[in-house]
């Protein structure tokens, strides 16, 4: 791939991002390629040394905050006519509620994901509490004189402790998984903003 082809491809993959950002990036990567060529690299090698346009675009999109991306997308590309403004105002009960609904869906998705985490940790906490409670109550009961019940309670406490320890690993893994998923979703939403522009 030549430098020009690479930069064109990258521009295509970044379309939808703020124009200034795209220009900045392309200048930066262009300079990097030129410097490699100047050092004696062939153009092909210099380009492949930089990495694939897909990877670079993915990293750039991940770096740009969603708010900035949304602002750029919502910025009107031309001035709206009076009729359009009036229509927009009349239609606001419809599109505004739809927009709010869309945001609510995304938000609820996050809430659902994180409530899973909260609940598994809650189960873990209750097991841990049962373990401590059972052990203390068992010892107290045994001291008071009710030895068989005390031992049963102590045993139950120990079982809970075992479960809590096991669950702790599960909780950690689940939290990691959800964090990863949250990032993926954020990336997916950003991707939507970028793709729309390409389709035009």
């Amino acid at each position, binding site marked *: 791939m030549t430098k020009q082809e690479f930069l064109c491809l990258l521009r295509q993959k970044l379309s939808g991002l703020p124009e200034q950002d795209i220009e900045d990036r392309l*200048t930066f990567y262009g*300079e990097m390629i030129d*410097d490699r060529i*100047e050092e004696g690299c062939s153009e092909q090698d210099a380009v492949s040394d930089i*990495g694939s346009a897909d990877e670079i675009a993915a990293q750039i999109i991940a770096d740009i905050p969603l708010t900035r991306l949304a602002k750029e997308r919502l910025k009107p590309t031309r001035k709206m006519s009076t009729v359009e403004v009036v229509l927009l105002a009349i239609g606001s009960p419809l599109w505004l509620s739809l927009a709010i609904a869309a945001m609510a869906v995304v938000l609820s998705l996050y809430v659902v994901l994180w409530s899973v985490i909260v609940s598994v940790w809650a189960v873990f906490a209750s097991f841990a509490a049962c373990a401590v409670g059972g052990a203390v109550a068992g010892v107290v009961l045994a001291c008071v004189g009710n030895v068989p019940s005390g031992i049963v309670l102590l045993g139950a406490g120990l079982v809970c402790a075992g479960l809590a320890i096991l669950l702790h690993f599960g909780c950690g893994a689940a939290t990691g998984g959800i964090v990863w998923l949250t990032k993926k979703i954020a990336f997916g939403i950003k991707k939507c903003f970028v793709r729309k522009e390409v389709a035009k």
Partner: protein
Amino acid sequence: MDIQLKRGLLDVCVLAAIKDRDSYGYQMIKDMKPYIEMSESTLYTILKRLESANMLTVRTVEHNGRLRKYYHITKEGLARIDEFKNEWREVMLIYQFVSKEDKPQ
């Protein structure tokens, strides 16, 4: 490595790459290579961050009929390097204390 820690380290690495003389992107990557592998994308993000934090300035210079951006460290950038060195003196002390336990008694 902890992501916040790594971020701080990379920032200081980039500052160190322009500490003694102004430099440009590819040269910085080459200078850092023996110590740390940094991709172009990462370098770009860090340069932007350091620029908005006033730790470096950028100027465009004509070179062989094309433009090249040179980065120059500011007072704030130099101060950040000093701060880093002081912080790490403490960290190294703690490290010595922590790894002392590894030695067989």
